[in-house]
């Protein structure tokens, strides 16, 4: 569904992603793991289109998107969430989600009719809020939400675009065990409807959710395979997982 061929990115002398070749199959949860600074977020930004590709090619559903703008990729069904929460803090939860629904449905070059009169937008936003567990917080300003709730909204904004493939960049960043469990449950639910490329440090979550795992170290893919294979891979253990997972 998503194919990367030799995708690279350099920041001055630093190689952030180095000839990354990767394919994400339709319907799978594909996890991208690796130590800090491995280039995971850079790669997500390159796939989502907010960061240029220096060399290499990206194909989504058979069409080349290497040079496509980010909003064009979103229209094609490729959305992302952010590691560092990026929501509309001075909007309510409902308005956040309604805006994302609005972005997808119909033209937003509409200058006269009040948004508030478009019941369909808010109805769908309500349903989405329910899906990510924010039904009780519809009218709270996003800025006033707890960290875990903001993370849920973060993922909700990506889901609101009705993607075919969603790039989740550390959805569980900074979450406690209880919140993480809820996020794992959410990802477990959405995987039935769409394909997921998941960047995550929480190995428990990764091994529970992922169909396949790709390991990125210093911008390079050092291994791709099923969780079982990755767990057993000597190089991965040396480079990243260490003894902790090996012992588990």
């Amino acid at each position, binding site marked *: 569904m998503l194919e990367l061929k030799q995708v690279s990115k350099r920041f001055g002398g630093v190689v952030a992603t180095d000839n990354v070749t990767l394919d994400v199959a339709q319907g799978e949860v594909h996890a991208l793991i690796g130590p800090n600074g491995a280039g995971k977020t850079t790669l997500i930004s390159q796939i989502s289109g907010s960061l240029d590709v220096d060399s290499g090619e990206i194909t989504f559903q058979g069409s080349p998107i290497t040079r496509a703008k980010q*909003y064009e990729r979103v229209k094609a069904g490729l959305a992302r969430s952010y590691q560092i929460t990026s929501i509309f803090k001075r909007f309510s939860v409902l308005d956040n989600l309604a805006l994302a629904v609005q972005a997808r449905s119909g033209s937003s070059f509409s200058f006269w009719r009040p948004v508030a009169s478009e019941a369909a937008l808010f109805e769908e936003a309500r349903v989405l809020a329910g899906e990510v567990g924010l039904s009780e917080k519809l009218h709270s300003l996003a800025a006033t939400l707890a960290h875990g709730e903001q993370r849920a909204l973060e993922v909700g904004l990506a889901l609101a675009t009705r993607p075919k493939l969603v790039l989740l960049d550390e959805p569980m960043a900074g979450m406690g065990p209880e919140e993480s469990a809820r996020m794992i449950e959410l990802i477990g639910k959405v995987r039935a409807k769409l394909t997921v490329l998941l960047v995550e440090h929480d190995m428990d979550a990764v091994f529970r959710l992922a169909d396949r795992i790709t390991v990125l170290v210093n911008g390079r893919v050092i291994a791709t395979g099923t969780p079982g294979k990755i767990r057993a891979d000597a190089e991965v253990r040396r480079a990243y997982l260490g003894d902790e997972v090996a012992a588990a």
Partner: protein
Amino acid sequence: MKRSLVVLALLIVYPLAMQAIDHLFYVSFASRLLIYAIAATSLNLVLGYGGMISFGHAAFVGAGAYVASIALAEGVTSAWIGWPAAILASALLAWVIGAISLRTRGVYFIMITLAFAQMMFYLVNSMKAYGGDEGLTLPQRATLGFGLDLANEVVFYYVVLALLVAILYCLHRLVHSRFGRVMVAIRENEARVEAIGLPVYRYQLACFVIAGAAGGLAGALLASHGKYVNPNVLHWVQSGTLMIMVILGGVGHLWGGVIGAVALLTLEHAIADYPVPWLTQLAPNYQQHANLGVGLVLLLIVLFAPQGIAGLLSRKRHARA
């Protein structure tokens, strides 16, 4: 809403009252305030709602003023031609300037909009056929037909007021429309707007063009009002003045531009025309430096009421409620 209607009622009665006490000058002065209110409101759309710090808004006001003036100088007196031409010219100019400037961000955006406006300033300075640096005196105000004589100060005032009200209503609709939501969202978090699938650049450009067009109308009115236009209408100081009005009145408040324009010009006028005895003794020339007083007020606003006067007023209302 109730307060808006009260203000509107006062604005409607105002020229009649001034006429009754034979102070027509103050009707003309008020027309000027309202024209600046239109200009500042148009900047507020870009600055307040769009979050684009444009330091070249005078270019659009000036372009409108010059297009309308040239039409009058060439004998095209109908406002129905001159004003739409001014609006169109300013919109086009905003489209060109915006298309280039909006590829930059932050300080670069501020500087490039400033640079474009200054280029326009020097361009009209060199237009010898239309007065060059001396400006252009117009034979008359534009004509409107329908028995509305714009040479009459009271009629002119009501026409300007009607246009201001129309623009405020349009702004109100715009802010609550789909487009308006997107603009405010871009101000809040540009990257995320792109990430939910909206082309930020196009929305910003559209906003910039709409504001430019409204600025052009203000320019056309300004030219007719004074029957005179000169390059200073495009000078960067003018852009700065409009910016001060918006900040003073309330960035991103519907009434911000109006309140700011009225407050600033009234303050300037008061300082210049009504000497304070003890200040005159202390500093005999202080009235020639009205900007000092304006600067002081602005400083206080920025420090203690970053939402401007409109913010202060609505805060008070919330406290009461």
